[in-house]
């Protein structure tokens, strides 16, 4: 008869019911916390590691990022006349090591996370999609 206990007063369940009811009626700082994504967006913190961005002028195509990438995500390809990294987002760890090691501080990671796509090939981001030009004041 171990299953019989003093618990049969059901005080605990009633307590729980009260807490859930408080949530139903949003009593005492228990608001709806949902952020309705396509309509409203949570802030992306400045340090967020999303899609890469490469400074068109600063990058010298040295390949240090290629060497240091843990996952051989980055390859250096020729774009117009210069060499730039190409990043395979499907393989990227988003670890930020490439940003850390860049000797020219040319590689950055932006707050862009909307990268979903229909094919595996489109996940490879060439320099044409990664380069940006720094505004000179």
């Amino acid at each position, binding site marked *: 008869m171990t299953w019989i206990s003093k618990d049969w007063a059901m005080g605990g*369940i009633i*307590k*729980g019911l009260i807490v859930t009811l408080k949530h139903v009626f949003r009593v005492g*700082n*228990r608001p709806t916390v949902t952020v309705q994504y396509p309509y409203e967006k949570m802030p992306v*913190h400045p340090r967020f590691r999303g899609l890469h961005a490469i400074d068109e002028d600063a990058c010298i195509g040295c390949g240090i990022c290629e060497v*240091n990438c*843990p996952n051989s995500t980055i390859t250096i390809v020729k774009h117009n006349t210069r060499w730039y990294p190409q990043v395979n987002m499907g393989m990227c760890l988003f670890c930020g*090591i490439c940003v850390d090691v860049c000797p020219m501080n040319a590689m950055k990671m932006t707050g862009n996370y909307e990268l979903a796509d229909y094919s595996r090939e489109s996940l490879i981001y060439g320099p044409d999609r990664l380069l940006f030009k720094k505004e000179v004041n």
Partner: protein
Amino acid sequence: MESDELFINMGPVHPSTHGVARFKLRMDGESIKECTPVIGYLHRGTEKIGEMKTYLQFIPYTDRLDYIAAFPNNYAYVKAVEELAGIEVPLRAEYIRVLTMELNRIVNHIVSIGSLLMDLGAATMIMWGFRERENALQLFEMLCGARMTFNYIKPGGVREDIPDGFIPKLNEFIKDMEKRIVDYEQLINGNEIFHMRMKNIGVISGKDAVNYGWTGPTLRGSGVDYDLRKYEPYSIYPDLDFKVCVRKEGDSYARFIVRMDEMKESLHILRQVVDNMPATKLISMAEYGISPMTGTPTAVSTYFPRIFTPPAGEVYSRIEAPKGELGFYVVSDGTTKPYRVKIRSPSFCNLTAIPSLVKGLKIGDLIAAFGTIDVVLGDVDR
């Protein structure tokens, strides 16, 4: 009365195996006669990858072992490397490390308790838990730019100093969390059905638990007063005031309560860390890497070369991760890559005891016991 046995193959895809664990069950009606866990469905060869990558490159991979609480993984590996190479760490960096790890401990216990309750059929707890977890993840994202896989703790320090506005948000989180824990306790701690499901289920004595190699909250639930943070202190834990949460009963409920208490202790630690943190700002790693000559002694990362070769040697270094003792056995042969990385994961060793723990219980108890052991399959299979 003899009846035919029923063989059930539970998993690897099953809602309550926390991923891809598989149990081969020999059942007599509803009772489990024999339970054979089959693991390895998430075996990703992390140890082999550790041999193929340099010391710095392997840090992101440690994030993905115990993906619910990745900071302790980072730290355990970095600690091993630091011991191997004899690197000094600035005090502020140690404070930041402890801050992140304790925050992560709260997150881990939230997920653990929440998924336990979800397996028992009460989905509300996990929703509330993830509400608070999300706030913590916002803090992580603010700190290091990622939500779950941080790559933040580096040999010699951390990647970047804490940003402006972080500490007020953290204080807000601590204050909020205290209130929420009261809600959690009201929702579940007294619930009679929860007591029926958890008390005297999956009992294991302290002696057996030690014999099975249990560590962490699961061990402390069996009455063994042991916490590496207290008795083999590392980092700044000797300076902090906290108590080790121990329960005598050794059943599922005790393990659950230990986690609940540890969350409160972690909040207590966090408050101390915030109060005592040294004020000197650290220089970020990227900055330091560019101009090593301008570095001050309080740099986040002591100058860390791209090619880093610790002296040959071997080290076993362990810390108290949220799930138990997490150890890295790193062997260096003096080259840029470790010769061997062995990971002693708490989940793997804690899972060993499942067959004897659930023998004679019902399927529902298997789920409850499995939930209280709190394994993460990435950590089990590595």
